[in-house]
């Protein structure tokens, strides 16, 4: 992807997650800012390269993922992942509970899973809705599934179906002046990514005219 294509996609995804932030703010009755500070298009084999300093420890560690498959013609799979050690912090922030280091034990209850499922649902809904409008088609997808992956398992699941392209979005949560970083990985088929880039190029041409 060229820098211009990357910039356009980054702006679009920032608009999509902005809508999700409004919903979350309304639900939780507190200001929540969501932004996508960085976006990258990578081949699956590049995910583990040394260059991905922030990503590597996350995808190889214990993570909680909310995942969904989408589309028919324009298709793929979206995974929203959080490092497991940040889940308790995120749930405490969302629910306005006090977070202490002692709570940092990696044992989760239904409540943690449900909070992540709802946040994942809201953000992925906004992203899928946004991508659907961009592609001018209705994307079919379900409520995301929440899965806790032990260290290394998520990467194995992600790469089990052969090589393809992954759009990597870093999502920064800003709640009560605290920041939590989540990562969205959208795995596209080759035709789908070409289609997405063609759409981005159309936007780029429109902007130039």
């Amino acid at each position, binding site marked *: 992807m060229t820098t211009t294509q990357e910039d356009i996609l980054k702006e679009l995804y920032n608009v999509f997650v902005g809508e999700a932030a409004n919903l979350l703010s309304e639900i939780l009755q507190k200001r929540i800012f969501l932004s996508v500070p960085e976006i990258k298009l990578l081949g699956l084999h590049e995910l583990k390269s040394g260059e991905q300093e922030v990503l590597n420890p996350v995808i190889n560690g214990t993570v909680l993922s909310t995942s969904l498959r989408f589309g028919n013609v324009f298709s793929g799979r979206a995974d929203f992942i959080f490092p497991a050690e940040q889940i308790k912090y995120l749930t405490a922030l*969302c629910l306005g509970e006090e977070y202490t280091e002692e709570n940092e034990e990696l044992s989760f209850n239904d*409540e943690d899973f449900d909070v992540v499922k709802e946040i994942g649902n809201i953000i992925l809904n906004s992203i899928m809705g946004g991508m659907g409008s961009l592609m001018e088609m*209705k994307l079919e997808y379900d409520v995301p599934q929440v899965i806790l992956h032990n260290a290394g398992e998520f990467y194995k699941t992600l790469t089990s179906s052969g090589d393809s392209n992954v759009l990597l979005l870093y999502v920064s949560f800003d709640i009560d002046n605290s920041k939590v970083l989540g990562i969205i990985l959208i795995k596209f088929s080759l035709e789908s990514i070409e289609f997405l880039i063609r759409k981005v190029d159309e936007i780029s041409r429109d902007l130039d005219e």
Partner: protein
Amino acid sequence: MNDLYIAIVNQLDNGIILLDEKLNIQLWNKWLVKYTGKSEEEVKGLPITTVVPRLDKKIYAYMFEKALLDEQKSFCSAAMHQYFVERKCAKMKPPRQNILIQHIQVEHTSYLMIEVYDVSNHFKRIQNLNKHIKSSVDFSKSLEHFVYYDSLTNLPNRKFVLDRLERLIEEEAKLFSLFFIDLNGFKAVNDQYGHLQGDLLLQMFAERCKHFTQKQEVFARLGGDEFVLLVEHMTTANAVEQYKAKIHELLREPFIIEEHQIVISASIGCACFPQDGTTARQLLSVADYQMYLQKAKK
């Protein structure tokens, strides 16, 4: 609507609400009748926000709209919304419910389906389960400690050392030295001051050993007044002598027990892997023999 489908919906163990495009209730299943005390006849045709006032918020109107127009599904958790449908018995503590909002299309008519799940007891159940798992884990940890550590000194025991030796031997590439330490004069301490004081001395010696031990070293008690020190990556004669001197240094200061100053010494034997043996028992036996040679000289 087909009677069979209605019968199935009424058998479900969760609430099902079906809304038309104007958000008026078209179906209110048996679970909800029991849960709320409101019959289907009472609520049918009424706007959902009248029957379930907690859904009368901008955020849910947005979710309903998104479901009807874009077929978007929304999950709302009890953690973030508490509950939606009031229970029949208002005196009970507020329930906790998850809901799932989704679109259903039958021919050319769109409906909204709201599934209601009462999760009031889930959190407590999982909490109890976690507590139970934690106590099981704690129990197996204490069991493991019991198997691998000496109860008097809290140092690793014979089994720990034998297991570690076998693992190191399997790795082959690793060199290591095993020191066998026998305290001289310990029997006299027991005889003169009693077994309790003897045990105290062993505990005090073990404390000194723990402070002395560094990474890749294991100080263990085999039993009685016999100890071993396992040192990885070290087999040169010079280094072996240095370690022996360090162990003697540990005993230089007298032990003070009930105002008595007790001085004891140690005899030390050493075996190195692989030159002195290739099994854990061979190495222990060589180190033990070397220790006896030292003791005999005294």
